[in-house]
């Protein structure tokens, strides 16, 4: 187990390093300096600006100092909003995005599993087809379409929920719904198929033969094992929810990290783009790592270490 964790930890560090290197060199591959596009500045000002952002040093020096600052979680100042550092933006935006992401994940997991289990128990029945139609629709409708439809129906036509911003639980309903439909659909489909597979296993027949109550069979025997594949997709789902927040935060004007990221893309604010990319990637990679470890712990059939020994 420890050996496996060590190996995955190594892979994680390498992936992170690839991302940092990739973002660094991609950002420097852009022709021109960030300062020569708007108003005319004198030669001296230009040089001072470049010196301030260390852009006058050789590339490899910049690269190593960037790595050094990233390791210490310092992403430097923003170019377009000089009064703010990237860390400030992350510090302000992250809690909001985290809240949105977490609530979405919880909603998606609970409703997806419920839908999948019900569909599996009524296999090939009307409810099964209904649930799976809902699920395929959930995968097919992009979240920005979902979000605008929800705003139009539940905020403009019927003013039940506020149209935008993020200040009370009522404000959270629409963004969460819009963001959760896709992941929910994926979980529902996965739960259904793995539940169907588990229900044909011998130990379920044994449990039935013992005369256990259907509720006990479903929850204690079937669901526990059916949920293992669901755990494996949690990492990818987290990634899709995270990228989904860019869109949802833009539509609902939620002051989260995604909003800063989209803004920085539009204004080509390179330090902010780099900082947020690296930050997002580290979250995702750590998430994937945790999911892998959790999976190994949850499923006793998976031998994380090859060695069987005494």
């Amino acid at each position: 187990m420890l050996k496996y964790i060590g190996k995955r930890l190594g892979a994680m560090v390498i992936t992170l390093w690839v991302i940092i290197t990739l973002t660094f060199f991609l950002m420097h591959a852009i022709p021109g300096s960030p300062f020569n596009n708007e108003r005319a500045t004198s030669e001296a000002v230009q040089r001072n600006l470049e010196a301030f952002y260390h852009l006058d040093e050789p590339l490899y020096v910049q690269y190593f100092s960037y790595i050094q600052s990233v390791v210490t979680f310092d992403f430097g100042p923003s170019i377009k909003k000089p009064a703010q550092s990237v860390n400030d933006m992350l510090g302000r935006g992250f809690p909001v995005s985290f809240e949105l992401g977490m609530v979405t994940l919880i909603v998606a997991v609970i409703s997806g599993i419920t839908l999948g289990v019900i569909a599996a128990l009524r296999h090939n029945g009307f409810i099964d087809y209904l649930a799976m139609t809902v699920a395929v629709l959930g995968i097919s409708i992009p979240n920005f379409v979902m979000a605008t439809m929800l705003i139009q129906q539940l905020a403009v036509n019927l003013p039940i929920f506020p149209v935008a911003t993020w200040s009370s639980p009522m404000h959270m309903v629409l963004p969460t719904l819009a963001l959760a439909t896709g992941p929910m659909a994926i979980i529902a489909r996965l739960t259904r198929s793995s539940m169907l597979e588990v229900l044909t296993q011998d130990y379920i027949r044994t449990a039935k033969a013992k005369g256990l109550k259907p509720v006990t069979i479903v929850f204690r025997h079937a669901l526990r094992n059916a949920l293992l594949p669901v755990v494996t997709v949690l990492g990818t789902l987290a990634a899709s929810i995270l990228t989904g927040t860019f869109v949802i935060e833009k539509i609902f004007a939620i002051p989260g990290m995604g909003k800063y990221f989209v803004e920085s893309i539009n204004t080509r604010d390179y330090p902010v783009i780099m900082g947020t990319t690296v930050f997002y990637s580290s979250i995702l990679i750590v998430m994937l790592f945790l999911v892998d470890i959790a999976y190994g712990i949850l499923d006793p059939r998976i031998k994380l270490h090859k060695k069987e020994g005494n």
Partner: protein
Amino acid sequence: METQKHTNDTYTDIPDDWFSPKEKDERKAEAVVRPSLSYWQDAWKRLLKNKLAMSGLVFLVLLTIMSFVGPLISPHNGSEQMLANQNLAPSSEFWFGTDELGRDVFTRVWEGAQVSLFVGLAAALIDFAIGVAYGGIAGYKGGRTDNVMMRIVEVLYGLPYLLVVILISVVMGPGLFTIIFALSITGWVGMARIVRGQVLQVKNYEFVMASKTFGTKTGRIIRKNLLPNTMGPIIVQMTLTVPSAIFAEAFLSFLGLGIQPPLASWGSMANDALTSILTGDWWRLFFPALFISLTMFSFNVLGDGLQDALDPKLRR
């Protein structure tokens, strides 16, 4: 006592002349009752039976035809701006209404279909080419080559897909070819993993060994023996790549990194139309959104159907 013995004796008590030998007809017993079908014929037959998947396929064929025919039968030009006709609701003149610059939404939806489908298909084909070559070599060579190649894939697989795509689009500047390049730069990894897994399995089958014994060259073995037998999962993966590429393009266009005017894609049309929901010009968002969703739906159900149809284990 009597009843216990009874069971043994009952059957021997039956007189022999009650039995008569059945006429032997060896030809009938040996005859193949089921018509012999190749793998592809069988898969196609099973796909035909899947109504949902077939309706997806029919929709996609119609969509492809309409994306070329639509602009021709429309009386308007998709990029022509008629400022007198801003934000008109659907009518007999403008079938899907007009947008804020007075452009005909009907024509633009079909032109957008061309762009969106092109992005999806191009991404899927590039993923296919790179993924099959990479995964095929890794799986076939095995050993150290496989180990090194798969380590690289593992690192690439860990990179968050859309973030890399965004980053590349920022650097290269938005546009049609940037999108396709950005989508395929990490997109082939999934395909490579699938192909490698399949090749690892198939290369140990006897017919491959037989082929090797005849002295067939490696390239020919990969092309003639290994790839045809891994085609099923590859095709399924491709049908699922297309919608995710279309989705990613819509997402990028939504962030302003996608298709640039005068070209339009469904994603960029939906993004332009976002403000329209508050003014009530629903048609501007409705039609592109409807076609994105229907296309995604069709590709998803078709992919599911193909997955079942191409799985030999589900053959009845």
